[in-house]
C-alpha cells in the first residue's frame, strides 16, 4: 500500500486519502464559518421558515456525503490478491469474487433501529466528537423518533434574538440527519426543536424524525 510507514505532508487537501482517520477542526473556525453561512442565508430570504429550509438544504448535502464517507471508512474486509494467485480462475470469476467479498465486509443498514443507532452514535461521533445524548421513540405516533442533545455544537455560541421566535439553527443538523437517512433508503421529515427543561435556563434541543409511510411498511414486512 502506498504511504505505509511514511509520514507524508499533503500540500493539497484534495490529495489526502479519505481513509486518513479522524480529523479535528478548530471549533472557532467552524463557528465563524457557520455564522457566516447563517448570515448569508438571512440576506437571501424573506421569512424565518425560508431560512430554516435553506439551512436544512445545506445540511442535506453534508448528510449525503457523510454517509458515503463513513460507509467507505467502515470497510471491515481487507482483500489480499496474493491469496488468489495460486488458484487458476478465469478472470471474470476473479472480479465477481472480489466484488462479492468487498460488499460482504461492509453491511448496509436495512433496519430502522440499525440506521437510527448508526446516526445516533457513528455519525454524531464523527461530526461532533461525541455520541448524541439520547435516542427515543415517540409515544404519540409510531413513525416518530427523537434524538436529543443538551446543546447542539452548532448552537454553542448562538443566541437567538427574541423576535425570531422558535427558530433554531439546529435546522442544519436536522438537514444532515435527513441527508443520511434519505441516502440510506429511509426517507423522513426531520426537524429541530427547542424543548424547555425544568430547572435549566437553556432549553434542550430535539431532532424529531418522522419516517415516511413506506419505511414503516417495509419495516413491518421485515418482521
Amino acid at each position: 500500500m502506498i504511504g505505509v510507514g511514511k509520514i507524508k505532508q499533503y500540500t493539497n487537501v484534495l490529495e489526502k486519502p479519505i481513509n486518513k482517520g479522524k480529523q479535528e477542526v478548530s471549533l472557532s473556525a467552524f463557528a465563524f464559518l457557520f455564522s457566516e453561512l447563517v448570515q448569508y442565508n438571512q440576506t437571501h430570504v424573506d421569512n424565518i421558515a425560508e431560512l430554516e429550509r435553506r439551512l436544512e438544504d445545506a445540511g442535506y448535502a453534508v448528510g449525503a456525503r457523510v454517509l458515503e464517507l463513513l460507509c467507505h471508512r467502515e470497510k471491515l474486509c481487507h482483500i489480499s490478491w496474493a491469496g488468489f494467485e495460486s488458484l487458476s480462475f478465469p478472470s471474470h470469476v476473479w472480479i465477481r469474487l472480489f466484488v462479492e467479498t468487498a460488499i460482504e465486509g461492509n453491511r448496509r443498514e436495512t433496519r430502522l433501529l440499525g440506521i437510527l443507532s448508526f446516526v445516533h452514535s457513528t455519525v454524531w461521533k464523527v461530526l461532533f466528537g461525541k455520541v448524541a445524548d439520547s435516542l427515543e421513540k415517540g409515544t404519540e405516533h409510531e413513525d416518530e423518533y427523537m434524538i436529543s442533545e443538551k446543546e447542539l455544537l452548532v448552537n454553542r455560541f448562538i443566541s437567538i434574538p427574541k423576535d425570531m421566535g422558535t427558530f433554531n439553527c439546529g435546522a442544519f443538523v436536522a438537514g444532515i440527519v435527513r441527508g443520511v437517512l434519505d441516502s440510506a433508503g429511509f426517507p423522513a421529515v426531520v426537524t429541530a426543536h427547542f424543548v424547555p427543561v425544568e430547572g435549566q435556563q437553556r432549553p434542550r434541543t430535539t431532532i424529531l424524525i418522522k419516517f415516511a409511510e413506506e419505511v414503516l411498511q417495509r419495516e413491518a414486512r421485515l418482521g
Partner: protein
Amino acid sequence: MAAIYSLFIINKSGGLIFYKDYGSAGRMDTNDSLRVASLWHSMHAISQQLSPTFGCSGIELLEADTFDLHCFQSLTGTKFFVVCEPGTQHMESLLKVIYELYTDYVLKNPFYEMEMPIRCELFDCNLSQAIQKDRVALLGR
C-alpha cells in the same frame, strides 16, 4: 461587598455597546452612560497623544479617591473598562476573560451586527458567571 461597580464596552468609534451596573450607588440611566462612554473614548485617545513616552497605547488604569477604572483595549480598538473599588486586584485578568467571552458569544453569533449594542443572552449568562466567580474568589482571598 461588590468589588466591581460597573462594566462598559465601547466600539472602535466610541459608541457604547454594552453597559452593566453591579449595584453601585452611582447607577446611570442610558443617556448618562452613553455620554460617559464617549467621554472615556476621547480621554483615552487624547492620552495616547499626550504621553511623553513613545508607543503609548492609552490609559490602562485610572485611580481616584472612591474608585479605580481599569481599561483594556483590544487590537481592533474595542475597549473594555470596569469601574471598581479602589485597590481591587486582578482586574486585568477579568477584563481578558470578558474579552474572551465577547469573542465567543458575541462575535460568533450570526445575529449580532458589528458595532451595535450587544443583545446576546449567552453573553449575559456567561458574563454573570464570570463576575460571580471573580467575586467568590475575591471573598476567599
